[in-house]
């Protein structure tokens, strides 16, 4: 059995930022475990730009953003174990396998869960039709193209308007494929507005909102797909079918936090985020186990992943240095109108130093709204925001002075306001 102070599972942006922050907070005995052959996680295949404006004040590509954190890690004594797969976590003992060391166990005083997420595939969304080849998740096609050097198809339809799908529409077009359409079942896009502008509009790729795939044709390689318009209850409307002759269908239909290890460890999961329930210090219900990044809730911006993970790293370091600090009384953060989830789900008022960052998503598009923080009928804070959309994660910072006025649990809601003439 190997002993260490902090073990971090995953060397993507969350794991790297958490490990470096914990190290800088004074804990030097840290092991980062990664199943891939290199650190960086999904950023390595996200070769497009737009990363790092918040964190570094400049516009970087995914590999550049990852590279900066890998460089920071290299300046420390943090041990990075590559090509190592964690099998289970039990009472802060990690069981893992690798080609190099076979089976091994690592006992840590604190663990940071940073496993990220994976793509939803054809099964959970029940795409009907033939089972021919040529159906890929967008991220899988992205890895093939950007890292392995294979263009997975020549004529492409994309289901789902998540960011990876939009980015792949542009990427495949630039590499010579014809992207015929992007179909989105919702009446709005799930991706960032900027990606609709620069990935679809720039290339004249049509976006069909309130449309879904109703047939996939072809037993060998697929030969075509049919999309149909859907009604308010998302049922396909007969007579609205459109057929596209294509050899490839990409799915960009959402991401699912990869929490098998978390569930196996008996840690409580929030069904709204599919990630662990955490406090303001990113600590789960198991003392000394922290979670951050996309394994906790799916983010749109890696900059926010880094910030959240740094908080997890600092909290884990404090936990180790204080020999497992007592956790104070918990105040819940409840979801009010138009708010689908918050992270954190609760906090300890006496542990808040300056304020608390609350991340959340809204349920519908709101042109002009106010984010209200209330407690027992008392309005604690209001934040005016424009262009709220479910596809874009929101963040508010509630200062401690206002939080101190709370009487019990707090509620976060998004209220539409009428525009003054």
């Amino acid at each position, binding site marked *: 059995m190997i002993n260490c102070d902090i073990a971090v599972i995953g060397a993507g942006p969350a794991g790297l930022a958490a490990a470096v922050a914990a190290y800088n907070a004074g804990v030097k005995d840290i092991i980062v475990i990664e199943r891939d052959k290199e650190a960086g996680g999904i950023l390595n295949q996200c070769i497009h730009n737009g990363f790092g404006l918040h964190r570094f004040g400049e516009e970087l590509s995914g590999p550049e953003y990852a590279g900066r954190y890998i460089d920071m890690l290299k300046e420390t004594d943090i041990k990075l174990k590559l090509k190592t797969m964690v099998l289970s976590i039990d009472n802060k003992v990690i069981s893992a396998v690798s080609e190099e060391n076979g089976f091994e166990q690592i006992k840590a005083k604190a663990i940071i869960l940073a496993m990220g997420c994976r793509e939803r595939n054809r099964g959970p969304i029940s795409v009907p039709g033939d089972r021919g080849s040529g159906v890929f998740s967008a991220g899988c096609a992205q890895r093939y193209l950007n890292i392995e050097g294979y263009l997975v198809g020549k004529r492409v339809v994309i289901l789902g308007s998540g960011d990876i799908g939009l980015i792949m529409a542009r990427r495949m077009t*630039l590499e010579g494929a014809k992207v015929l359409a992007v179909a989105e079942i919702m009446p709005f896009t799930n991706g960032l507005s900027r990606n609709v502008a620069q990935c679809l509009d*720039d290339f004249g790729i049509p976006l069909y909102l309130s449309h879904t795939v109703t047939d996939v044709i072809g037993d060998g390689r697929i030969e075509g797909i049919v999309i149909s318009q859907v009604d308010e209850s998302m049922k396909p409307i007969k007579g609205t079918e459109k057929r596209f002759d294509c050899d490839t269908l990409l799915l960009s239909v959402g991401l699912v936090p990869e929490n098998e290890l978390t569930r196996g460890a008996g840690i409580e999961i929030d069904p709204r985020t599919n990630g662990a329930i955490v406090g303001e210090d990113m600590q789960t219900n198991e003392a000394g186990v922290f979670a951050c990044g996309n394994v906790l809730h799916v983010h749109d911006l890696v900059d926010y992943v880094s910030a959240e993970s740094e908080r997890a790293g600092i909290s884990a370091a404090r936990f180790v240095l204080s020999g497992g600090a007592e956790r104070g009384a918990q105040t819940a953060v409840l979801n009010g109108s138009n708010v689908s989830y918050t992270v954190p789900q609760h906090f300890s008022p006496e542990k808040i130093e300056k304020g608390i960052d609350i991340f959340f998503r809204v349920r519908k598009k709101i042109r002009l709204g106010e984010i209200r923080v209330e407690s027992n009928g008392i309005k604690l804070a209001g934040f005016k925001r424009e262009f709220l959309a479910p596809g874009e994660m929101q963040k508010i910072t509630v200062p401690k002075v206002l939080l101190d006025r709370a009487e019990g649990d707090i509620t976060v809601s998004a209220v539409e306001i009428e525009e003054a003439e």
Partner: protein
Amino acid sequence: MKELVCIVCPRGCHLQVDENTLEVIGNSCEKGAEYGKNEISNPLRTVTASVAVEGGIHPRLAVRTNRAVPKGKMFEIMNVLHSFKAYSPIKRGDVLIENVCNTGADIIASRDI
């Protein structure tokens, strides 16, 4: 007035640009104002792609233009990248192709390989 979604950062501000005076409103930063102006007069994009590389841990190397280039030049630049091959070792930020397609922008490596 032309309405645009700013693509400078993921925030995606909704800009309104006056086509005659090039005055921009709705931006939250200076870069957004510049984007709005350019988008009407001379739209610019950063090109990101991957090129063949030999001797690294992967067969492809992520690259990008070190600054935004005219939107109409994107496919011309892609053609240059299709016939280009890099050889490891390469450092992040290394210039692989200078002044690509006379745009004044260089093609730089996005990572070490």
